[in-house]
């Protein structure tokens, strides 16, 4: 009794990816509706078919978007409770929605405009609006705040703490992170959708300014705008639609209770501190899909920061724990000749950041066989959401 092989992604749509703020004057809802409309066309469906929203990070208000699109009916409207950690898991939520009979065609999407609100910005800079600033100040006046006064104030700071531990514990080097950034950039510049169009060299990487040591500028995802939407339905309905179904073999969203504090107080136990925190999620996803790491043909791993790609490779068993540095430096994750190509679309680091949904889009194209940097004979594509707080997530798509 699980969603294994019961649902499939049948439609994908996306807007252009813009440098931060350049999608204005469009609104986030407007970009979402454009991406959904393209996904409906891609699937060969009608607008009236769409009746569910399986989201993460509460990307939109489904009632408002359904009204603005003139959808006939809305029968499912739920969201995973975390931010980017839920990206891959939202496709699993869509599978649960259609397999449970609660709706027929579920949209999963992210839409993002970073004109005024920068996700990577500091978490302590008071918001401009005085009322919100006062409310935030009031929230800080609790007995727990004084116990975390280290000024660790942004996602980059948090993941640099974990990266530094990994480097000390396993001897991982900045050259290893650079190798992954360079491999992904090489994939991105072959794609018209990518924000970056020039190759990245070791010199570029080591000449770049340090932001939160050991993370330099190129270890950080660029901040971009855009929207990506996917449509999921049951495998029976998927058969007679326009595209080959990308079957959902397995999915998981959750995490480990003791690993929860990775963006807060850093109390994670020694055995999982220097990791992506995905080990339980990986176990759950592989168990549902009935496969293991060796079956994965391409991995689209959430890369808000380059070291977290290496740590997820260890969490998902794509290489032994502690050995992701040399494994990447030896070219194993490069396309087309790597043993396990990682982020064939260039990922957040080089193609564009829409909080993980570009990874979902690439996973569908890989199992359809239509990706720009296609992995020959790709049968299983793994894509993940976060490292982040609970829930993080993973979904495994299979060629029909």
């Amino acid at each position, binding site marked *: 009794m699980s969603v294994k092989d019961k649902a499939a992604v049948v439609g994908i749509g996306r807007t252009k990816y813009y440098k931060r703020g350049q999608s204005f*004057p469009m*609104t986030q*809802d*407007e970009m979402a*509706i454009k991406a959904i*409309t393209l996904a409906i066309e891609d699937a060969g469906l009608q*607008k009236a078919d769409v009746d569910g929203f399986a989201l993460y990070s509460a990307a939109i208000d489904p009632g408002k978007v359904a*009204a*603005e*699109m*003139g959808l006939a009916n809305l029968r499912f409207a739920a969201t995973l409770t975390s931010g980017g950690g839920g990206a891959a898991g939202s496709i699993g939520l869509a599978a649960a929605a259609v397999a449970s009979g609660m709706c027929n065609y579920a949209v999963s999407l992210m839409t993002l405009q970073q004109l005024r609100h920068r996700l990577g910005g500091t978490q302590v800079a008071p918001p401009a609006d005085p009322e919100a600033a006062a409310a935030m100040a009031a929230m800080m006046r609790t007995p727990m705040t004084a116990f975390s006064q280290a000024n660790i104030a942004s996602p980059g700071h948090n993941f640099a703490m974990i990266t530094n531990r990994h480097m000390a514990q396993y001897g991982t080097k900045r050259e290893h992170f650079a190798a992954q950034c360079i491999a992904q950039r090489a994939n991105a510049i072959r794609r018209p959708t990518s924000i970056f169009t020039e190759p990245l060299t070791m010199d570029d990487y080591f000449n770049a300014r340090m932001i939160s040591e050991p993370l330099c500028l190129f270890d950080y995802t660029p901040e971009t705008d855009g929207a990506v939407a996917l449509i999921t339905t049951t495998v029976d309905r998927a058969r007679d639609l326009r595209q080959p179904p990308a079957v959902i073999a397995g999915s998981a969203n959750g995490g480990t209770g003791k690993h929860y504090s990775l963006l807060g107080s850093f109390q994670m136990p020694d055995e999982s501190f220097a990791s992506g925190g995905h080990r339980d999620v990986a176990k759950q996803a592989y168990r549902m899909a009935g496969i293991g790491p060796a079956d994965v043909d391409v991995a689209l791993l959430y890369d808000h920061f380059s070291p977290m790609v290496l740590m997820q490779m260890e969490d998902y068993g794509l290489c032994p724990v502690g050995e992701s540095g040399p494994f990447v430096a030896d070219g194993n994750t490069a396309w087309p000749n790597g043993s396990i190509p990682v982020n064939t679309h260039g990922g957040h680091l080089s193609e564009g950041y829409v909080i993980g949904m570009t990874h979902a889009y690439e996973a569908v194209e890989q199992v359809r066989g239509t990706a720009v940097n296609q992995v020959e004979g790709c049968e299983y594509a793994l894509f993940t959401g976060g490292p982040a707080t609970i829930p993080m997530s993973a979904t495994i798509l299979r060629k029909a």
Partner: protein
Amino acid sequence: MGTFEHQPPVTLTDPAADDWTQGFWDAAAEGRLAVTRCSSCGTFRLPPGRFCRACGSQEVTYETLPGTGTVFTCTVVRQPLSAQDAAGFEEYVPAVIDADGAPGARFVSAVVDCAPDDVAPGMKVRVVWDRVSDALSLPYWTPE
């Protein structure tokens, strides 16, 4: 007491207009009631939003309406709902109006210059304007 009797305690000063609502406010400044209409399929729509609900087009025109209509539903706010409304509070009549000439689009506003208990669904009304500033005129409705 605002421009009208039983005028709601409205405090809006900036309509935050975008390309899909500016036409409404331009017409309002000239005392004309206009409604968003899809340029490709002619469907009227409120609230404007950026897409036609019927055909998905983003192209709009603004159709000037006769400025008459019928109360679809209404209510009467009998007590101030927040401290800021208490000073000089008057009962007021929020109402949803079926505007003549725009089938399928209803205006959400209020009926003014009449006894609140006289207002009921089906009542014939016409638009009147409260000029808040040069750039902003707000539409209210009053019995014909």
